[in-house]
């Protein structure tokens, strides 16, 4: 990784591209899109990129691998929603409709790169390799989080909005200070961009010239609040300018474009060009969570309009047309997805009873006197209950 003075980074990278810093920071005039809604590839000059800055098409292998994750992601979303309906799980914020973003977020990263996901990014977390049943611990109410962030380089799925972007900045900063070339992908939604921590995270990343990709899934809603009441900027990607950072927007239902845009962003960041902001336009096809009633704030016709843009269908059509999906491949992928779903079902159906003593075991590294006292009190209470039986 080259170490550049933050103030010079934008000058240097923009001159590499032969453009002004402002043009580097401002997103391309339109979003980047590679597949049209029928799964046909847009001609290279019509993919939204500024002339001379076209994105290369990812390799066939990369595309098929990504498609496999896409199919699994859809299956995970639908399986989990079903488990919620069956009462096996308390809550699941589904990313149905956003699976292309989820998959690209995981696949653009190298093994030592970190991801900072939100509650909605379960599919991305699994696609980065976290064991599904470890991911599900939180949703089934066993414990707040069930996997080891260090092992997978995936932080816990953050509930307090946008707070995790700052943690991402810290992880990148620590890595940079040690001379490691780790890239960090930090995820949030459109609504979350309004929080103060969004601003602080982007500014810190820019000032310290850190390799962080801020990846905003603009799914048009923050629970019931549409984007128009969240921001009146030309796009969320335009927010990059205020931090001296590059922004780009991309069709969030187009897995090919996402792989291209996030791929380049990761490369630029790893090369020491500082952070980038990528906004993906997508749509939350289901309610915010199962506890939400989306009919109160949006028309069904709007939802229907997005079915035509479904990321899975588009990708399947494209790959099939390109001859990249022979029947055995399709079958293998379908079987894989089914296996994942079965694993989720089996896992959720096997009862897990957390140990009440755990309440006190992890508040501090070593329980304090107070923790020990309170643990003893509960243990005594439970013992007496046991005796009374």
């Amino acid at each position, binding site marked *: 990784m080259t170490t550049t003075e933050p103030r010079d980074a934008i000058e240097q990278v923009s001159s590499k591209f032969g453009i002004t810093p402002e043009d580097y920071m401002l997103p391309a005039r339109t979003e980047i899109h590679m597949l049209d809604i029928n799964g046909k590839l847009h001609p290279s000059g019509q993919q939204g990129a500024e002339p001379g800055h076209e994105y290369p098409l990812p390799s066939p292998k990369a595309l098929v691998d990504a498609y496999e994750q896409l199919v699994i992601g859809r299956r995970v979303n639908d399986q989990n929603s079903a488990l919620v309906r069956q009462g096996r799980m308390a809550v699941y914020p589904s990313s149905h409709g956003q699976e292309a973003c989820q998959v690209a977020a995981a696949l653009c990263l190298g093994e030592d790169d970190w991801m900072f996901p939100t509650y909605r990014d379960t599919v991305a977390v699994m696609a980065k390799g976290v064991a599904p049943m470890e991911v599900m611990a*939180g949703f089934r109410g066993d414990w*707040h989080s069930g996997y080891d962030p260090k092992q997978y380089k995936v932080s816990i799925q953050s509930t307090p*909005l946008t707070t995790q972007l700052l943690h991402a900045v810290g992880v990148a900063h620590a890595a940079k200070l040690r001379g490691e070339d780790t890239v960090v992908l930090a995820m949030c939604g459109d*609504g979350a961009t309004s929080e103060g921590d969004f601003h602080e995270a982007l500014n810190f990343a820019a000032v310290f010239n850190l390799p962080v990709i801020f990846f905003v899934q603009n799914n048009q809603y923050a629970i019931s609040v549409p984007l128009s009441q969240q921001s009146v900027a030309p796009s969320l990607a335009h927010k990059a300018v205020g931090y001296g950072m590059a922004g780009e927007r991309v069709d969030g239902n187009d897995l090919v474009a996402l792989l291209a845009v996030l791929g380049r962003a990761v490369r630029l960041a790893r090369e020491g060009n500082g952070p980038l902001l990528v906004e993906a336009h997508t749509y939350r096809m289901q309610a915010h969570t199962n506890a939400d009633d989306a009919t109160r704030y949006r028309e069904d016709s709007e939802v229907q309009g997005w079915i035509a843009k479904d990321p899975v269908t588009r990708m399947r059509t494209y790959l099939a047309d390109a001859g990249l999906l022979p029947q055995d491949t399709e079958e293998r992928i379908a079987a894989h997805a089914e296996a994942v779903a079965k694993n989720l079902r089996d896992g959720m159906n096997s009862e897990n009873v957390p140990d009440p003593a755990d*309440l006190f075991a992890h508040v501090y590294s070593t329980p304090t006197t107070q923790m020990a006292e309170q643990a003893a009190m*509960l243990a005594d209470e439970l013992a007496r209950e046991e005796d009374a039986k």
Partner: protein
Amino acid sequence: MSPTVTTSSAANGNVSAATAAAAARTADAGTQPVTFAKALNTALADSMALEESVLVFGEDVGVLGGVFRITDGLTKRFGTGRCFDTPLAESGIVGMAIGMAMNGMRPVIEMQFDAFAYPAFEQIASHVAKMHNRTKGKMPLPMVIRIPYAGGIGGVEHHCDSSESYYAHTPGLKVFTPATVRDAYLMLREAIDSPDPVIFMEPKKLYWTKEQVDLEALRLSHETDAVPPTEGRAAIARSGTDATLIAYGPSVSTAMAAAEAAALEGRSLEVIDVRTIVPLDDATICASVRKTGRAVVIAEAPGFASVSSEIVARIQERCFHSLAAPVLRVTGFDTPYPAPKLEKYYLPSVDRILDAVDALQWEEGA
């Protein structure tokens, strides 16, 4: 789970028996089952109808009506100028409300959940609490910050914090927390009318509980000052003679259940519903403890350095020689709020309260 609140006449010396009886008569007429949520919703609507400067805003409070539906129908009835969604930023919501209160409005804002008020902590602690004082009263801030709080609903992390102690410890804030449907209506109206900023803590597990009340009669009582204020007046939710249980918000119903269970065993417990944590009604609490000689304070929040510590400290400061035993506490543990499957071990339970009552040194005492 619908405790009947008997307002203590000691605490409300200024209500004539006649007025109270009249209110009771009116109440009987249109009484029907009303949820806690509906009472709050009606209080908002009635305040907005009466006073144009009352505004409601926050996250998802407009067309959705709030994630708990407390603001349901307000945008439709009063327009987007009176009840509206904001961008997703809690410091922004509180900060903007401060400016609105500075300029003639009475904002009533919603924080979506307890832990999501924390981004606004600086605005609350450094401005909401202090503006009146730092301007020597020239700039009052009539505003209400509604915070759904506490647990018992199997919520995920950051959705079940009992954060009242942070606010109670901050001078300049008033902290209200109703425990009954009737109080939900009356206390919210009172909070909105207050010239001081009020942190209005709503026990979210109570939103769906029902009581027989007549909201229209309550409206009339409130608007004609026929009911005494709740501010600074604890309610004696149940009379008793042997020991006093002191609780507020989500814990009142647990305390009532414990008192009922104790009664079966022949022990008469008085239950005090604190209602307004700030200002605290020392007088009612101490009068009860002086009478019973024993007390247990109950709260969901971690006990350490909390409102429950304060109540214990005050009782022993003020009623020391009436105490037959130390004042005990039954609170949440000093741990983060647990995941759903463990919350039953965390929350103050009837059994735990009864254990504490049993520990009040009955042999040695009076």
